[in-house]
């Protein structure tokens, strides 16, 4: 069955089995393996992508539910070889350890800043409440988002 969607600025028309989840299609058909399956139940946030401007667990969405929609994955954050400021801030603040939660975490934070360039710390925590991390205790992740929001360019 044909699925049309726009991923990281590219329009795709794919033949996709209706049983597949959006996560499966991103990872297996488009080789966008940044989104990870950590639980398959929307509890860990490893598969978070941005769907029409909102952070969404791609493990809980059937691929065909994304028909006609616009998707940004972690692979779409870097522009022309230049990291998004949020990515750079994760590096600068030491917000990355094993890295497995990082793509989902970044997409949740990016979705937050797209909507709210000046979030409070509470709002940052709320944005990542559905993203589990076992390595960092979230502290440096929150610092990294804070730093971008507080920078002179703001979170935009």
């Amino acid at each position, binding site marked *: 069955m044909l699925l049309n969607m726009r991923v990281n600025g590219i329009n795709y028309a794919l033949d996709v089995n209706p049983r597949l989840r959006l996560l499966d299609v991103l990872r297996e058909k488009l080789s966008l393996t940044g989104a990870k399956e950590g639980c398959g139940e929307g509890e860990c946030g490893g598969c978070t992508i941005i769907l029409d401007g909102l952070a969404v667990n791609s493990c809980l969405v059937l691929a065909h539910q994304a028909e006609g929609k616009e998707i940004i994955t972690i692979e779409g954050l870097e522009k022309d070889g230049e990291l998004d400021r949020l990515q750079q801030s994760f590096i600068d603040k030491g917000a990355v350890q094993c890295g497995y939660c990082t793509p989902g975490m970044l997409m949740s934070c990016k979705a937050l800043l797209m909507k709210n360039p000046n979030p409070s710390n509470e709002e940052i925590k709320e944005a990542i409440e*559905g993203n589990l991390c076992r390595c960092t205790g979230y502290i440096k992740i929150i610092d990294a988002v804070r730093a971008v929001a507080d920078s002179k360019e703001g979170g935009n």
Partner: protein
Amino acid sequence: MEKWAFYSPQSLRELIEHLAEIHNPCFVAGGTDLMIKIRNYKIKPTTIVNLNRIHEMVYIRKEDEAIAIGAMTTFTQIAESPIVNRYARCLGQSAGNVGSKQIRNIATIGGNIANAAPCADSITSLMALGARVKTINIWGEIHEKPIDDVIIGREENNLDEKEVIIEIRIPTLEGGYSAFSKIGSRTAVTISKLNMAIVLSYNKADAAIECPKVAFGALGPKPFISDAVANSIKGKKFTYPVIDVIKPVLLKEVEASIAGRASFPYKREAIMGLAENTLNLLMDGIKEGGY
């Protein structure tokens, strides 16, 4: 592997036109609960009817004596809605407490009702608010029924196989206030061990509670209205410590619902904290104004 048929109508009319031909449809709204059941082979669908392209089912409107919420409205939209937070604050509070940010971004109020989980946060608020559920069937007939009639038990609704929830209607009450709170295992992203919503109207002149309605969730197979708790605060003044009035009634309610269960010793205590939290939220609401 069995192939699924997948069907995505783009309007209600298109949905109705095709429903008759579809054998054993499995409706997907947001999909956040359904996907887990499918993955665990609790549901084995053959035909998926995806509702997320029916954009006419996404709205929050203030009407004369009610607010109307399209069934495909997400919890994020509800939690952020000024209309909801003015006229049905407890629903906004419960919507903001559902799952995680990612879940709220796609999970819908219609889907939540159809799923009928005993701990569903929004349903407790809808019960207390006296919400009514509008559905449509294959003949295009629209029915409106109290939410209490739609949800009949643990993960059980009484919708026909081809009946779809299209709208939730919440009566508005002049001088009304409401609040919702829950107790889970952690601050956020947590299934309710217990939740509660209170709706009442409050006459500022004599400071007395009028028309109270109280609902509880996760205290049985489905959220329910407690007349006993409501009656205990009816006519009481807020200047009086309302919590002391309802404590014995709360205890009786918990005993009646879950006595003998393993969770009973905890819930009989925790409900006091929950009620206090809910009343505090309600007081905050009264101070700020809003229903």
